[in-house]
């Protein structure tokens, strides 16, 4: 029991670590998903923008929702938010704290996806190749408007027959990738500065309220876990009692119906207790049949 309690305590105090671990795993999964995904720009005028921006923004939404689903604390927070007040008041500061910590963790994987996408560059090249100014590039400068759109749309496709040896294609591609990477690094820098400031300046404001909110949010989490375990323990004991009652009632029934002399006294080797008065094949069959056809009532009083 002691060892179990030790393991439980370790786990409890590290509930934050568990959540951070899940957050890290999702971020890694996001990078892996991006590398294994076969990006295939359609190279058609209107489809490019939809495809490029779609790949940049839809998977982050999916990752954000996954981050919320996989985080156990989001359920705890929702329950705490929606429960009737009853005899325990609700503290909105605690709910706000839990909400913000859940959101922060859920935002990590989407941000990682967006940054990896921007640093790689393929999405932006696909989406905005049709929007560059053709006058800036020699190969596209003197082409008719309709054709230039078609040509620019094919820039992301290196192996296309029209684009295979086109130097202007490489120029456009480099230009867009430069913009994409600059955007990516800037976003990364801004986010890291914001995180740094938030962490350093937080103790300057409302530290006491924060400590309280953190304590009570941990408390709600632990209380929920202990309640679930107590229910498990209770149902185990309930089941145990129920089955014992059932065997007893079968023993009484057999005593009533059979004509053999009842066995008196305790068995010398304790096996008698375990046999619980069921000592032949028919009795065992009857017991099993009764268990299925007529389960005992859920009442162990």
């Amino acid at each position: 029991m002691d060892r179990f309690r030790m393991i439980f305590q370790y786990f409890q105090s590290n509930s934050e670590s568990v959540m951070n671990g899940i957050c890290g795993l999702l971020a890694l999964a996001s990078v892996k998903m991006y590398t294994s995904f076969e990006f295939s720009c359609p190279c058609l005028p209107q489809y490019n923008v939809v495809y490029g921006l779609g790949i940049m923004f839809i998977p982050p939404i999916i990752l954000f929702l996954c981050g919320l689903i996989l985080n156990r604390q989001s359920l705890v927070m929702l329950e705490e938010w929606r429960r009737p007040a009853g005899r325990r008041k609700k503290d909105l500061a605690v709910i706000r704290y839990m909400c913000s910590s859940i959101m922060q963790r859920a935002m990590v994987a989407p941000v990682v996806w967006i940054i990896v996408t921007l640093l790689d560059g393929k999405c932006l090249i696909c989406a905005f190749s049709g929007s560059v100014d053709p006058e800036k590039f020699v190969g596209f400068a003197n082409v008719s408007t309709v054709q230039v759109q078609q040509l620019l749309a094919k820039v992301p496709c290196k192996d296309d027959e029209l684009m295979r040896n086109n130097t202007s294609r490489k120029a456009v591609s480099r230009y867009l990738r430069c913009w994409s990477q600059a955007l990516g690094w800037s976003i990364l820098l801004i986010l890291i500065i914001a995180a740094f400031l938030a962490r350093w300046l937080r103790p300057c404001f409302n530290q006491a309220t924060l400590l309280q909110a953190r304590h009570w949010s941990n408390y709600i989490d632990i209380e929920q876990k202990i309640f679930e375990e107590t229910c498990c323990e209770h149902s185990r004991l309930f089941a145990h009692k129920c089955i014992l009652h059932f065997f007893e009632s079968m023993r009484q029934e057999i005593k009533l119906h059979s004509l053999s002399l009842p066995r008196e006294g305790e068995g010398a080797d304790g096996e008698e207790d375990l046999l619980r008065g069921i000592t032949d094949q028919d009795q065992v069959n009857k017991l099993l049949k009764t268990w299925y056809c007529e389960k005992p009532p859920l009442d162990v009083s």
Partner: protein
Amino acid sequence: MDKFRMIFQFFQSNQESFMNGICGIMALASTQMYSAFDFNCPCLPHYNLAYGLGILLVPPFILFLLGFVLNNNISMLAEEWRRPQGQRGKDPSVLRYMFCSMAQRAMIAPAVWVSVTLLDGKCITCAFCTSVPVDTLGNASHPHLSQGEIQRVLARIPCKEIYNGQQLIANEVAIRYLRCISQALGWCFVLLMTTLAFLVRSLRPCFSQAAFLKSRYWSHYIDIERKLFDETCAEHARSFAKVCIQQFFEGMSTDLVAARCHLPRKAPADAGEAAEKLLGITDQSTMNMALKSWHRCKPPLNLHPPALPTGNGWAGEGQPPTHPSAPQRETAAYYSWV
């Protein structure tokens, strides 16, 4: 008992984790199956659609059924559903909870297969290559061909080696187009599934949380009760077998004593446990006869033989006979064999 209880509690509180683990393994197995599968588009007009959609939809169905088969709780659900009411009422909300939680877990591997298939693009490319809009994507100066010819040419798009329609529509253009559509469908499907999962999970605490807690408790209870009953029956079977075999050996030794008209050799007081465990069988031929009898004529499953006033061996011990042996029944069986 304490250690058992600890392990049991750990397992119980982690049964959900265990089921989630199996679920995750099946999802991984599903991606592995897809990458190991050798996709081979037939490149014929009507076969393409059947093959492509078949590969997209039939394996998920198989994985869904497999998800149910591998779930131990399915037999528990079936048993609870079909049992007669007897003295214990049936709660439909508990059955619904059990079914829903099993169905949710079984849905994950098929959803992973469909997503991976759509994001990869081969199935949709194969199935819908004959529907590519040749007018918008094709070369303007393509030769005029009959509808059937065009279909046959387009059907070969996925098979680059035999494609002969470069003048009609470039192979890469068509494949890029189809793959783009397929990937868009794939991401939309994943987004839809994730949104549904999120809504199901987050709307539940807002409605019927109390009913949910009740259903969850009683479904765990049914599971635990079934396991405890199985354990109790196993314990009972063990004791039953032990007593049955003990009675068999005692019966054998009493029969042989009766047959040879020997006085029972009373074990000396200081012989210890080992002599007791010999159960009266102390030489090779007796043991061989016991083994043969065990095989040829197993004792009946009845530990309640009628009590007989026998004086064999217990007269001097001063204890009431706890196992009134049934020499008559055992003897009858023995002699009928002889």
